[in-house]
């Protein structure tokens, strides 16, 4: 894939202090950010204006986004820029005006209300420029950790911060690090799980594309803390830009002595290699991911032994989600107590959510854990196209939250109590035009396609459940089919080998819990209340 080269030629801010940042994240690139950047560079390449390409600024559905900073003016964000509009806007700025056209309000909630910890530099630095990352504090935590802290202290600090795995499980990160640190064996590995496969999840992509050095820094600190010399980043094959920027970042950091042999002259060596996935959702499961890293067929094996005991090539391995690694540097820099002060007790820190679906603004949000769902929706500008019906968390492995629970604080335990999961942070908002049976059917078909086929309950169960849901959607089901579906789903949850199979029935069980009458409408009245499922022999619909 050909992508623009956002390397800065003029990183300094001049030209009356005018600094223009153009978002070069995947969503903005898809809507034409490359042309905007080129037009701005062509128009003002000669004149002393800093035009830089950055990572994601947040409101992805409003791309291409640009940000204009100028001394004496408030920072302004402009949405849906075309090359022409961008040039006009900048020209107006040079003339001393700040045009309204396309400008987001100064208190635009999507940007103003975020608490950015993991994404603090996303949209601010040039992801392809190591100097830009270092100028913003990148690798300072690594230098501090290697220079001033012992591995035990680091594990302790991470433990004290209360950080929990951001991949969805919520396992205490400090405990995991300590397990790997204490494990015997000469070789150990650190693995970053960047196989973000859930429909509606794009937080990790945002971080990898917008601030790749943050991930590398977190992994290197982890390597030092657990005694590993090798790290792998597993990036899903559908993220070519993330892989490209990570690859370039690894090379740059290596050249600067921040990765590789004898980091910063400390005697600690840590090498990071990239592994690109081949398009399997199940590779997000840690044992399948390790199999894939080792060049084997990506399918899970039974745990225990856990990766901390026996991971890559039989050695103790630390696997964390990309976002978890993104939390490490701020914790080392600011201390565990600071991290605990964000969020709620037992759920410290922030969580990045990718909010999409029927909302006014889709994009990436970072908020303290425990923020009510209602607030998240308000930040995204509220529900569009109808009234709020449900929000799906955790993608295909999660469930939905109905309108009656909109005030639920979004943390690990509260979501579990509602029969869903935090998951990696995908949040799909649905309005009242959506059919929940159809949603469950979509996710079940997704799981059927993504099942690795190793264990019988998941391979055969998803096939049968998808068929039952097809029958329900087609108005051919009987009430017996609903109870059979429920039975089958409970069975899969109990008996499947890995997390994919255990979680595959969650969307069905969750929609059955909150929207059972919709299923019954489909079966009893042969009617889809939302008018989504096309049924033969039903009375004409509008």
């Amino acid at each position: 894939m050909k992508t623009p080269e956002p390397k800065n030629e003029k990183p300094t801010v001049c030209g009356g202090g005018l600094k223009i940042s153009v978002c070069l994240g995947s969503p903005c690139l898809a809507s034409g950010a490359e042309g905007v950047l080129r037009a701005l560079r062509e128009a003002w390449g000669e004149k002393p204006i800093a035009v830089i390409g950055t990572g994601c600024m947040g409101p992805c559905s409003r791309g291409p986004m640009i940000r204009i900073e100028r001394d004496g003016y408030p920072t302004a964000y402009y949405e849906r820029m075309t090359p022409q509009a961008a040039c006009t806007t900048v020209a107006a700025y040079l003339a001393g005006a700040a045009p309204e056209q396309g400008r987001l309000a100064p208190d635009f909630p999507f940007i103003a209300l975020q608490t950015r910890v993991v994404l603090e530099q996303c949209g601010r630095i040039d992801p392809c420029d190591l100097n830009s990352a270092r100028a913003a504090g990148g690798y300072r935590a690594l230098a501090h950790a290697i220079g001033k802290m012992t591995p035990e202290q680091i594990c302790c600090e991470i433990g004290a911060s209360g950080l929990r795995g951001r991949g969805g499980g919520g396992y205490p990160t400090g405990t995991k690090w300590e397990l790997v640190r204490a494990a015997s064996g000469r070789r150990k590995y650190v693995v970053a799980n960047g196989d973000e496969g859930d429909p509606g999840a794009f937080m990790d992509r945002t971080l990898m594309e917008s601030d790749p050095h943050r991930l590398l820094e977190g992994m290197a600190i982890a390597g030092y803390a657990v005694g590993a010399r090798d790290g792998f980043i597993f990036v899903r094959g559908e993220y070519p830009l993330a892989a490209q920027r990570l690859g370039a970042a690894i090379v740059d950091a290596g050249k600067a002595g921040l990765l590789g042999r004898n980091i910063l002259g400390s005697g600690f060596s840590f090498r990071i290699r990239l592994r690109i996935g081949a398009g399997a959702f199940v590779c997000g499961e840690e044992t399948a991911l390790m199999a894939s890293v080792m060049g084997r067929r990506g399918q899970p094996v039974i745990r225990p032994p856990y990766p901390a005991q026996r991971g890559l090539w039989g050695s103790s391995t630390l696997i964390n989600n990309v976002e978890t690694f993104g939390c490490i540097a701020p914790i080392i820099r600011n201390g565990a107590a600071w991290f605990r002060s964000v969020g709620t007790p037992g759920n410290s820190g922030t969580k990045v959510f990718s909010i999409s679906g029927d909302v006014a603004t889709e994009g990436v949000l970072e908020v303290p854990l425990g923020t009510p769902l209602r607030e998240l929706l308000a930040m995204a500008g509220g529900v569009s196209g109808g009234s709020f019906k449900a929000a799906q968390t955790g993608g295909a492995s999660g469930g939905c939250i109905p309108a009656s629970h909109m005030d639920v604080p979004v943390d690990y335990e509260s979501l579990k109590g509602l029969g869903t999961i935090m998951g990696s942070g995908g949040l799909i908002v649905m309005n009242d035009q959506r059919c929940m049976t159809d949603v469950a059917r979509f996710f079940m078909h997704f799981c059927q396609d993504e099942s690795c086929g190793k264990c019988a309950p998941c391979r055969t169960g998803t096939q049968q459940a998808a068929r039952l849901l097809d029958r329900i959607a087609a108005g051919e089901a009987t009430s017996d089919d609903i109870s059979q579906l429920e039975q089958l789903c409970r069975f899969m949850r109990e008996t499947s080998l890995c997390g994919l199979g255990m979680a595959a029935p969650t969307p069905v069980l969750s929609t059955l819990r909150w929207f059972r009458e919709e299923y019954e409408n489909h079966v009893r009245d042969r009617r889809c209340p939302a008018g989504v499922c096309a049924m033969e022999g039903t009375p004409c619909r509008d």
Partner: protein
Amino acid sequence: MPRLTLTINNRSVSARRGESILSAARRSGSDIPTLCNLGGLIPAGACRVCLVEVAGYPRPVPACATRAEQGMVVTTDTERLTAARRMIVELLLAERNHSCAVCVMNQHCQLQDLAARLGIDHVRFAFISPLAGVDISHERFGIDHNRCILCRRCVRVCDEIEGAHTWDVDGRGAASRIICDLAQPWGTSATCTGCGKCVQACPTGALFEKDAPTKKATIDMERLSEWRRSRK
């Protein structure tokens, strides 16, 4: 050899360290049904038929792949487990085409035996009936994918015992197929040694020796009465 003690179905059982629950249970007289397990192979824990309940564990665990631990309290035969086992076997029966009447392993099939043992007299699910294909290009053996339950005993025996790794799995989920070498006809395989271990390992009639089955298929009255009993 260090030993440990655990409780299986209310009986105190002694086991070697590192021994599986399955093996300890069998020695103590609790017969846990299995399908993908085969003595001598690394357990896969894939068919989930041997699931047992262990006190304090949140969900059932496969007896073949779980080590016995000191003080463990195991139950192998609860209503919940029986229901799960029935469900698995029914799902397997519905997945491909298990036409016992024309199967070379009729009366000798472990899937059939298991169905009888669990008293399965009907299948609740829709028969998917894919056209899975047959490969009889090998001189002595054949593979009928319609009868395959993807237990991978053939894959593992060929890899772990014979060391040839002729078999592997192609595709995923419902599209999974046992393949020979680089998905080529068995008869053209460069790695197959013709040892026949896979045929011996196959629990169903998916892998078979050509012309041999008719010798096996003698009517077994005892088994027939077992079938009949189970219907009641």
